């Protein structure tokens, strides 16, 4: 267990000689490597030329003659630019409306006294319990009645109110000292001015935490857009990828599937690698969403 000694330097003295924690650590390292294998294969297969043949497709050693053909094929067959645009529109649209709804509702819960506060609080809480994805059937017929079937707006609408975001903002707003608001009140600031110039600027970390959770979860959403969207040119990335995979599977074009998958997840992976700390702390708060 020598190789790990450096890593256990800061452990309490009495435990440094113990073997079990080191075995656990070794097992974790091994599993972390296993966890990365699908990603490794995706990268290697994307760059592998089709001429290598189907039997080397599973080889994790990179090909000696790397090619970008698979990326080009996926880009052309899959209409990924259009899918990316749709997903971006969906995520941005949801997030912008959510910012408004959660700021207003969060402020009401944090700073205002009103009749029925507890009741309304529990009404919000209910959204956390009734996972929206279970209500796809009634929500689909509502979206159809509103004339929003097969529109991006129809995909976005059920997520415009967010109990999770409201509670996150309530917590952030409660932490802001009331003296600041009192000072603004004396200067004659209206309710909206106080929210806009005091509460919002001081709660940016919570907004960004919420943005990370909201965008990742809607970027990855599949079942709901699959039900709402019918026309191929309105598909988001996830639905597009599933259709693309079905087509490419028929022709055994595994390199192209790997390239398509890579394109779908690359934006999230790159953002994650840059803002790793922030992502992780956001996901910890997201337990209930």
């Amino acid at each position, binding site marked *: 267990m020598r190789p790990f000694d450096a*890593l256990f330097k800061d452990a309490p003295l009495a435990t440094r000689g113990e073997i079990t924690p080191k075995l656990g650590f070794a097992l974790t390292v091994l*599993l972390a490597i296993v966890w990365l294998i699908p990603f490794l294969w995706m990268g290697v297969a994307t760059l592998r030329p089709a001429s290598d043949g189907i*039997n080397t497709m*599973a080889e994790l050693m990179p090909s000696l003659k790397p090619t970008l053909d698979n990326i080009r094929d996926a880009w052309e067959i899959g209409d990924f630019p259009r899918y990316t645009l749709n997903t971006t529109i969906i995520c941005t649209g949801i997030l912008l409306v959510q910012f408004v709804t959660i700021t207003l*509702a969060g402020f009401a819960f944090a700073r205002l006294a009103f009749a029925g506060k507890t009741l309304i609080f529990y*009404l919000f809480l209910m959204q956390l319990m009734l996972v929206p994805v279970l209500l796809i059937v009634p929500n689909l017929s509502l979206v159809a009645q509103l004339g929003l079937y097969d529109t991006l707006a129809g995909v976005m*609408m059920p997520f415009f109110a967010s109990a999770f975001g409201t509670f996150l903002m309530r917590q952030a707003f409660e932490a802001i000292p009331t003296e600041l608001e009192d000072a603004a009140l004396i200067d004659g600031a209206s309710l909206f001015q106080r929210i806009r110039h005091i509460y919002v600027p001081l709660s940016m970390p919570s907004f960004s935490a919420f943005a990370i959770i909201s965008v990742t979860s809607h970027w990855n959403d599949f079942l709901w857009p699959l039900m709402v969207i019918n026309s191929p040119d309105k598909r988001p990335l996830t639905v597009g990828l599933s259709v693309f995979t079905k087509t490419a599977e028929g022709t055994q074009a595994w390199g192209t599937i790997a390239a398509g998958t890579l394109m779908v997840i690359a934006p999230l992976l790159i953002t994650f690698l840059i803002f790793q700390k922030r992502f*992780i702390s956001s996901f910890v708060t997201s337990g209930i969403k």
Partner: protein
Amino acid sequence: MSLAEPAALPVTTSAPPRLHILKRFTTGFKTSLPAYLLLLPSLIFLALFTYGAMGRVLVDALYQRATPKAPVRFVGLDNINAVLADPAFTGAVVNNLIYAVGTAIPSITLALLFALALSRTNAVTSVLRAALFLPVLIPMVAASALFLFIFLPNVGLLDYYIGRLLPVLPNWLGDSDIALYAIMIITIWKNAGYYMLFFLAGLQAVPEDVMEAAHLDGAGPFQRLRYIILPELKPTFLFVTVIATLNAVTQVDHVFVLTQGGPSNATNLVLFYIYQQAVEHYDIGKASAATLLTLAALMGLTALSFRTMANREGGA
């Protein structure tokens, strides 16, 4: 911290309340008005897509159309009885139970192992945490696209490297005895890193000096785990179990992409059954009845979540 402070009612303090109930109510409403206006945008969407949806499920479950174009007629509990008598539904429930237990236990166990091994923060553990967390970020559909090849018979990744050790190559997604377990592997791979985060956060709460005292008293690593760490992590366990169970019901995108519930319904899960009834059979009555039953089953879990959240001091 209380969840909500009682509303201030300034006028009622001097007057006997019973004579002025109406006045008190209107004054209360007037002072509350700004708050109601701020809550209105959220409440409209919640009313449409959460409470309204609940009501529609309830109503839709009681009605039935003979053909997609026929007018609806009231059928009472017929839909619910039909769903309960449908072997595809009961099969999906059984599959979902196996799936829930078979994904929750391994992924939570692995998450705990990862968190214990990576609880100290340094460059190496940060990289390992990131590696284990990567699958959490990617869409289930993308994970499915990768595992489609991993599970591919003969030339796929799994058969290429591990399959040679087996006398007969299994058809991972095509064999009805194996397919559900193959699906479970994807879920475990995708979620263990997520649950790890909660255990990492929970481990911060384990007091360092108690740990120190324990091994001065000669407690080995397993004794410390059993008597100090696990009791301290109890709320985290409860919380993660709730999330894992919810995920087992809601996170079924890989079934859509990889197996379509097959072979012979071996990987059919409840949400996929609901989707099939609604979209493939246009049977809104049965789909709603199945939704209703699932929601009812999750009510028990809801009570549990409330308790979990109370443990987390009402915060989310």
